[in-house]
């Protein structure tokens, strides 16, 4: 149980990586952008991969009538996400320490993981909804208005995960280092649960 609790503590601490490293990343490459433009999505805001990428993405997007990429203060998410992650870290630490001291059972580890997963899915849902709005809610006076082969207006929603071709751009959307740390942290808490359960069954 001690080993499991330590894993739980490490797992929770790995989430703090999100305060430093980006959760997610979207890159946009095109023939005339051999070095792709890109944005790193942090829990507290969106940053360009290179200094002027956001400005340049906005500059290109204005042709097709997309809104500018939200500034940190424009989205409630960037205020709430750090609080949520911070709380989950604190909660995970608490559970891990209490587990270490033998005050609570390994079921709490799973409970934390389930809660984190639900929050994660909600986060992804919210992220996808924003991208959907960003990619489809276009300025009716856009300079370039294109249609899909079926006659409906062209949309430019970047993929939630993976690759998508948007006009001349290849968009790639994948987790970034902070996201991987979070995934690893969640895996550790799962391990904590499994080891906790295993030690329980072998002990008893």
């Amino acid at each position: 149980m001690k080993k499991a609790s330590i894993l739980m503590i490490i797992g929770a601490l790995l989430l703090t990586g999100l305060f430093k490293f980006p959760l997610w990343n979207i890159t946009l490459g095109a023939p005339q952008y051999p070095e792709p433009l890109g944005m790193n999505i942090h829990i507290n805001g969106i940053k360009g991969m290179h200094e002027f990428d956001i400005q340049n993405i906005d500059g290109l997007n204005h042709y097709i009538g997309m809104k500018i990429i939200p500034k940190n203060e424009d989205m409630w998410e960037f205020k709430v996400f750090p609080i949520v992650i911070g709380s989950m870290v604190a909660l995970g630490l608490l559970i891990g320490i209490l587990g270490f001291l033998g005050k609570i059972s390994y079921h709490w580890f799973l409970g934390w993981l389930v809660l984190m997963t639900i929050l994660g899915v909600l986060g992804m849902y919210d992220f996808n909804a924003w991208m959907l709005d960003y990619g489809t809610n276009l300025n009716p006076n856009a300079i370039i208005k294109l249609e899909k082969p079926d006659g409906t207006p062209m949309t430019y929603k970047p993929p939630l995960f993976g690759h998508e071709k948007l006009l001349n751009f290849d968009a790639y959307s994948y987790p970034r280092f902070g996201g991987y740390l979070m995934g690893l942290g969640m895996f550790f808490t799962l391990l904590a649960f499994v080891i906790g359960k295993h030690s329980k069954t072998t002990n008893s």
Partner: protein
Amino acid sequence: MKKHKLQLLTLFGALMLLTSCGNNNNQNKSSGALRSSAAEKVYVAPGEHDEFYAFMSGGYSGNVTVYGLPSGRMFKEIPVFSQFPTSGYGYSEETKPMLETSHGFVPWDDAHHPDISQTNGELDGRWIFINGNNTPRIARISLTTFETEEIIEVPNSAGNHSSSFVTENTEYVVAGTRFSVPVPQRDMPIKEYKSEFKGALSFISVDPEHGHMDIKFQLIMPGFNYDLSHPGRGKSHGWFFFTTYNTEEAHSLLEVNASQNDKDFIAAINWKKIEDYVNNGGGTKMPANYAHNIYDESTHTGTTTMKKEVLTVDPLKVPGAIYFLPTPKSPHGCDVDPTGQYIIGNGKLSADLTVHSFDNMIAAIEAKKFDGEAYGIPILKFEDVLAGTVKSSGLGPLHTEFDDKGNAYTTFFISSEVVKWKLGTWEVLDRKPTYYSVGHLMIPGGNSRKPFGKYVVALNKITKDRYLPTGPEMEHSAQIYDISGDKMELIYDFPTHGEPHYAAGIPASILAPKSKKIYRLDENKHPYAVSSPDQAKVVREGKEVHIYMSTIRSHFTPDNIEGIKVGDKVYFHITNHEQDFDVPHGFAMIGQQTSELLVMPGQTKTSVWYPKQVGVWPFYCTDFCSALHQEMQGYIRVSPENSNIEISYSLGED
């Protein structure tokens, strides 16, 4: 992911096929092998980069062109001494001061010898210097922006030819006069040339941080012609060597009268000694008038300062600093090998090459073995300083460069060839024809302590039939030889712009990583810059109107301007708000009697327009900046001189 893997596998398969094909060819080829391997050597596949940068002087274009080696592709023309309508250099208000001289605005020069800055005798890639030959000037070009940053005029000089070579740590860039002239200039009979005319050799200090140039001292030498020069390096660091001709001091029909002496001199100058003399208060301040032009990257603006004084040094006042080395037959190029031991005098009317030894020179000086003097300057004995002679190597030797294996390569103008020979044994190893009549040659780093001996480029004076004919006037011709093996191999032939004299090459790995992509808008300190479009404005100050305009894909702000009158002087101050690599915007106004402006991201440039006719006149972006480039335009309403229409301006209003 799976799909990617599959593609990779296919690609890998294709590569295998290609390589195996190549192998088969190599085995089967006989006579065709040479040609195809030359093609492989110069082929830089689409999207791939060259191994070296080559900076070619433009000669009478006044500029510098940048090429890639081994592909021979031209990347850029850097405007230096000549107006350049492509970018607006020398036309824009910011760059006009760069071409100011004591003779006023001189929009052209004859650019000869580029030289890249060095640290410890090795290329460091900070700056490249080049001389203006006609109205003596030295320019410094930044190798992060590839733009001219500074030009200093050289007083008391004429035909600034033995220039612009740097010392081992870029302590100095050196400029010597070809024509001797009265110093200071004065009204006097030409016939009194002898002993009255002087040759000024200028040592221009280079600030190690900013590169700013300042004439530290001018050595006022006898009235010979100072043809070319190179610094000592390694053991001979602290010395500078100049070839001279016309030691006869002829002033007319030089082709005969300056070719009479069997030997002219290489002047060996211990500049460290003279520097000490000057630092201890030596030298004479002489009134002068010369321009010093500096371009500031943050204000994007050049300024001219007229300097009124120059420190001159009389060679006789610094005993032991200057010696003459007799060198046969009007030597042209003066080249120093990578170790600093050998000084090569390329006697242009001779069949042989004279090589002097630095050690022999020092020994002769210490033993005081002099063979008379010229104007008080000791002449060493030819036999005492001679290291060796490269015999019957060709006709009309001009210039020598070096590889990193102890070989030297000399151009022969008259016999039109490059000859490879061995330092120390003076044995000719190989010779290859050039097409035609080669002047300088260039090996990247070939005049430094560390040459990169892979290619030599021959810069020819005569083109004739090398390319498709283009009428009587055509570009010059260059050839690239692979010198990595025992024998030189001609691998490519390409035209070069203007008349390249010398060139300088440097590995791309030194320069490419630090090449600037944009200018930062937030560092733009131009007094008329617009930092955001809402600051764009039009301001009338009497007859002058200043238009503070910004550009971003794909519009000007403002784009409709009224209240301009005939007789006004209108300044367009254009700031490019892009912060994206390679998105310039251009600007051109109908009827404007100047060039366009090409404004790089984050930059501000200004041009002046004198509206002369009433009407509504358009301007537009001259660079195909974006899909909406053709929409990037605007109108200016010009009213009669006596009209009382107020200034107004707008963007996007009906």
